């Protein structure tokens, strides 16, 4: 490699990498903020519809909304709907072909609205807001994509998920409860903890979703290291060993 080529190589690498970033961004848009160090943002305080005594003053909670096209009686594409809090208090992912609508429908609007809890599930206390998930359809030739349109729709759970943020990270964690209509009874559904205070469940249908603390969940316990934390010693020892090995190779090479 000539001297000038060698001098140009790192500049070429910078340009190449910049184009790679732009190309990847166009092909795979990042979902959310790509923090490059892996330390997440602190969440804003939970926004209640009816704040309990002592809660911090916040703006009102927001709804999650999305509009998507349908064809042949179901949604063509997957879609997300996130509420606007930081982080979102509710986030819904709807997989393709999981919302069933009349074949005349060309578009559906989807929304998840925060509501104050009315009735509590048996043996549990709702944490934060209830979120009512509903969809409405726009019939071909309809005036607009608003919720005034009529046409019932159904949803299947083929990979569609609901994610909600709890009001705190207390453990043992709250569980998801679901009711199809406000008049129906709450029943518990599968819950997976996927973050500090973030929980996921399958989208089992339109209706009301809530996180709730079961009365026997021992909420006052705030976590701490489990017995498995003993295994943390293994990587610590490995890092220390690597540091010693690196120091030795440096001494040898000098």
């Amino acid at each position: 490699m000539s001297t000038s080529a060698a001098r140009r190589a790192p500049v070429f690498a910078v340009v190449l990498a910049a184009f790679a970033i732009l190309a990847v961004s166009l092909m795979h848009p990042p979902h959310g903020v790509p923090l490059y160090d892996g330390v997440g943002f602190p969440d804003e305080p939970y926004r209640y519809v009816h704040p309990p005594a002592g809660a911090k003053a916040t703006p009102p909670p927001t709804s999650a909304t999305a509009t998507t096209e349908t064809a042949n009686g179901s949604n063509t594409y997957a879609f997300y709907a996130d509420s606007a809090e930081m982080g979102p208090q509710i986030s819904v992912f709807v997989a393709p072909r999981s919302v069933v609508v009349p074949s005349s429908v060309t578009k559906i609007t989807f929304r998840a609205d925060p509501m104050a809890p009315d009735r509590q599930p048996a043996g549990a206390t709702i944490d934060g807001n209830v979120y009512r998930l509903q969809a409405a359809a726009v019939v071909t030739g309809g005036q607009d994509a608003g919720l005034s349109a009529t046409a019932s729709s159904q949803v299947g759970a083929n990979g569609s998920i609901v994610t909600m943020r709890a009001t705190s990270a207390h453990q043992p964690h709250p569980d998801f409860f679901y009711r199809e209509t406000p008049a129906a009874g709450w029943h518990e559904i599968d819950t997976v903890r996927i973050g500090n205070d973030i929980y996921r469940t399958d989208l089992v249908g339109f209706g009301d979703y809530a996180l709730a603390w079961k009365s026997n969940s021992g909420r006052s316990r705030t976590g701490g290291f489990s017995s498995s934390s003993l295994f943390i010693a293994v990587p610590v020892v490995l890092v220390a060993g690597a540091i010693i090995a690196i120091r030795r190779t440096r001494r040898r090479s000098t």
Partner: protein
Amino acid sequence: MTSLVVGRPVSSVVRVFALLGGFGAAIALRIMVGGVAVRDSSLAGVLFAVAVAGLAWAAGVRARIDVRALIGGALGAAIMCAPLSMHGELTAHRPGGSFTSWAVVVVVVALAEEAFLRGALYDAVFDVAGAWAAVFVGALCFAALHVPMYGWTSVPLDFAVGLLLGALRWVSGNWLTAGVAHVAADIAAWWLR
């Protein structure tokens, strides 16, 4: 790789593998401490930073502050923020919590990562296989360390960003250029979403 390392001092090759092994252990430590909340755990992030900073220290990495590093880093940060400006938006919704305490953790973690990846590891791989390999290996490690936080879908973008940070190290001869770019891009994310 075998043909690349032939003729290199054994100690250089051992150093590369010791650095990679220590790096893997540091990631494991972070995952074990953070658990399912690894992305949100400042404690896990700081322990990871201490581990990789220790590895960088052992390899003899030193910081060299100069104006070129600051300017080059600022330009690099602008490129790293491009995905945000293309798909994100400036909003009135600010993250909650204290900016200062969050920023301190972000700066510590980002600088530790760069001291290790674009300092110690870059120099070690460079000695064995040259600059292109040093940039490539650093980018691979950068993408790998983010998988536990963001999942596999983050790999293409983080790999591309890792290439840029490695290239900044190459063009400037100073890991701090990549450090400044990394820190500035992360801090900017407070306002960009």
